[in-house]
């Protein structure tokens, strides 16, 4: 059965650590990093490989900091 696997890339310097993407992710992939960006914000980052590339996080990000990739896998 084909399965979508996704990846997100967060523009670390553009992210303001608002966390609005966290509840938007159905797979609970995102969390705030321990490290901070140049402006001192803890930035969002993926924490596991459950991402399906649904783009929810990118769609709700106020700063447009997330780029999303998705690929179909036939396992």
């Amino acid at each position, binding site marked *: 059965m084909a399965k979508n*696997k*996704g*990846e997100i*890339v967060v*523009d670390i*310097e*553009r992210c*303001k*650590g*608002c*966390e*609005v993407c*966290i*509840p*938007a992710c159905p797979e609970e992939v995102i*969390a705030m990093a321990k490290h901070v960006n140049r402006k001192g*914000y803890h930035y969002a*980052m*993926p*924490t*596991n*490989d459950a991402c399906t*590339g649904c*783009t*929810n*996080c*990118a*769609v*709700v*990000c*106020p*700063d*447009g*900091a*997330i*780029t*999303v*990739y*998705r*690929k179909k896998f036939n396992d």
Partner: protein
Amino acid sequence: MAEFKTNPEILQPENQVYKRTELLTDKALSYCPGCGHGTAHRIIMESIEEMGIQSETIGIAPVGCSVLAYEFMNIDMQQAAHGRAPAVATGVKRLFPEKFVFTYQGDGDLAAIGTAETIHACNRGENITIFFINNGIYGMTGGQMAPTTLAGMKSSTSPYGRDTATMGNPLKITELIANLPGTIYVTRQSVHTPAAVRKAKKAVRKALENQKLKKGLSFVEIVSNCNSGWKMTPRQSNDWMVENMFPFYPMGDIKVNDDK
């Protein structure tokens, strides 16, 4: 937390399904973390990109948090005096009826000082689009009470809560202008969840497409959060918004034109 490694097989250009639109400039947004302004900017610019009208669109920025919208929106922009964007847009649209013209305004700009301009642009049925971001507060100047501040809601100029007996009632400007024959599409949206953003973007797209019909003004209110002004975290402010703003400013289309 386990160290997560990306999968290069997925991270290929051809697999990219979402990226930041080029119709937003590279400048970092001046908005507070989690503020709905940024999302609203993005869905408007994405719509303009998808409609292919970047070279025919002129945006009018207000005075308020989004006064610097012209730094972020990669189209020709004019910055209007506080409250006057609908009049500025009228001047542009009347002289260039074939261009796409929109205003982008906050609640203080549109529903306080600019009430007359808002009502009369709607009443004249100008073929423009008004994007109205309602966060119930004057954000830029530090959190004062706005015309849409809820009864009992605290702000720096209603520190003990808005007392409607002496400070007036929150103004439902959107319902008010929906009654004017000059408006053809009036809707209220939000941008705090993926589903809400997707719906809001459809409304934005329709409101811009409507300008081709030359049948009147399209008005999109976006109820949004103001975590700095409301003194909450971004996520708390979105929850507070749903709980307190939505009952008074209900979501959905108030007036819809059915022609394509």
